[in-house]
């Protein structure tokens, strides 16, 4: 009975980790290939809000329910608070620093 439960937890944590890995890979591809700075912020947000928390939730399920799970939840909250702050300051500082956004001309 306990063996079946453990394998179910393993499958759930692997599913979380694989989906998070997909989001992190697509976000890194977007950071490498997007044409402008202000469009590169968008895949950075995909990495910070989908990729990393999904992988960390998968790791927390894999560790089982102990004190480490609490630490990983603290780490997820830290990431979800600090990364949007850094991105906001980054885009505001790019606007003040006279970086022109890429705007398509009206025909």
């Amino acid at each position, binding site marked *: 009975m306990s063996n079946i439960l453990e394998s179910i937890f393993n499958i759930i944590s692997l599913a979380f980790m694989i989906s998070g*890995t997909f989001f992190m*890979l697509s976000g890194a591809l977007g*950071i490498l290939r997007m044409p402008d700075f202000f469009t590169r912020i968008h895949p950075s947000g995909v*990495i910070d809000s989908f990729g990393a928390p999904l992988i960390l939730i998968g790791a927390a399920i894999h560790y089982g329910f102990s004190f480490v799970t609490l*630490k*990983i939840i603290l780490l997820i909250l830290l990431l979800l608070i600090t990364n949007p702050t850094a991105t906001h300051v980054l885009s505001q500082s790019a606007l003040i620093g006279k970086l022109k956004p890429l705007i398509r001309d009206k025909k």
Partner: protein
Amino acid sequence: MLAIIITVILVSMGMVLLRAVMGPSIFDRILGMNSLTTHVIVFIILLGLWSGSEFFVDIAIIYGLISFVTSIAFLMYFKYRPQDE
């Protein structure tokens, strides 16, 4: 399966590092480094899963705090300064 996930994370870390190296402006470089720190946090957690030790989580928390302070400090330095290049 965990080895494949770690390999994919390493590949995406290389792509973000390439953007940080060849970014046209200084803000692209800071964005690339800020995203690289998120990759490194996830990589430390996966390394802890792979080696079976629980103490990698504390290192990841400390790394996250230091990376946030570093990013904010660089941006406050470059905020009121016209763009070079």
